[in-house]
């Protein structure tokens, strides 16, 4: 049933604050495989096509936790979001122009699915992703923030983005006395590091 009524828009366009993985393919097959890989409750998989990917990503509030794709091109809106927000970006096959330099590229499904699974189950010290959204510090404390979610999923890698993007996550970790902070690594990416490591480097 075709309708312009926004109440009848497809489910993947429904705005939601739950941690989301946007999968951009032409046929949806990869999205099905990823959905079977993601542990229950950790993230919602949104199956997007190249022409609606920017709209699907826009419905993930404040931005998607992860974008996985296998398409040969990227819309400018989506490229702009990926270059300015800390979004885990994984690509199968040749990476189209516009992807950020921290994109992880894969030639085969299996290692890509393994990388998705690793990100979902990432453990940084005692910290891990809580179901739905936020980071469980291991002592019952829940820290909410899309940037921190992204840093945990990317660990030990990081994001080639300006330091200011991670200020709030760093401040939240310091307030919670989590023992971790953010720092630019050798590959010029901002990643999580233990506070002892950061202090030694100074």
């Amino acid at each position, binding site marked *: 049933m075709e309708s312009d009524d926004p109440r009848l828009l*497809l489910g993947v366009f429904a705005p939601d604050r739950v941690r989301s993985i946007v999968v951009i393919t032409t046929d949806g097959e990869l999205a099905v495989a990823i959905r079977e890989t993601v542990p229950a409750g950790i993230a919602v998989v949104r199956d997007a096509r190249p022409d609606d990917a920017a709209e699907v990503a826009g419905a993930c509030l404040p931005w998607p936790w992860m974008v996985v794709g296998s398409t040969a091109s990227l819309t400018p809106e989506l490229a702009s979001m990926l270059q300015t927000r800390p979004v885990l970006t994984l690509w199968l096959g040749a990476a189209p122009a516009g992807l950020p330099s921290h994109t992880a590229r894969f030639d085969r499904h299996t290692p890509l699915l393994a990388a998705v699974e690793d990100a979902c189950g990432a453990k940084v010290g005692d910290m891990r992703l809580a179901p739905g959204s936020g980071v469980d510090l291991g002592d*019952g404390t829940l820290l909410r923030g899309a940037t921190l979610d992204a840093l945990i999923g990317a660990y030990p890698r990081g994001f080639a983005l300006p330091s200011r993007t991670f200020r709030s996550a760093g401040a939240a970790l310091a307030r919670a006395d989590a023992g971790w902070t953010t720092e630019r690594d050798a590959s010029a990416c901002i990643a999580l590091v233990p506070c002892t490591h950061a202090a030694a480097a100074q």
Partner: protein
Amino acid sequence: MRANPEVLILEDDAETLEGLQTHFTRKRFHPLAARSASRALSLLENNLYSSRPVLAIVDWDLGKAPDQAASSGDVLSRLARELRECPVIVYSQNIDAFNVRSQIQRSHPRALLHDKRDGDASLLERVDRMLDRTVGDLRIHDGTVVVHLPTLDQHHHREAIRLVVHHPDIVTFHSDTSTKAVRRFGEWLREHDSAVRLVSHGNRKYRLSVTVTAGSTSADETV
């Protein structure tokens, strides 16, 4: 006060629909049963502000539906958008086909999938497992009653069921009546000195929190 929770059932086969309806009626649910997607959409529309189903069971293949004006995808989209806290089970004979899974996933990214070839009994067993939940010292009995296990006292209200079924998620209530019912449930929890308490997030949003005593600290339990 009794207010039985509703279950949306969309199934185009009259006999199967009747079987599901009987099952839920016996368990004291109020089934919102539809043989077509249009009927299911109108049931949702009519019930949106008065009550909201605690569970939706949707048959993906509606070839035998009396009208084809809308599809099961439209119902799933509506559920994803307006009743996102409602767990949805979609079942199909072709659930293994990736294009079917992909279409379901686009319509409702959180829908749970079930293979119709496993039979109705397997579906009902799964539903019962989902609805008979334990949260802290509370247990849902028969899908319609919240039992405080230490005292075996019972609380009957669909909004209480909804909170327990959706724990640890935040649930939004859409009317003063339901909000009052939720607050009464919160008082009932306090009176029973339950380990579960009601947490308000403002704007008619509530969730349950379970206090776990671990040494001197307490924390929200994540189930």
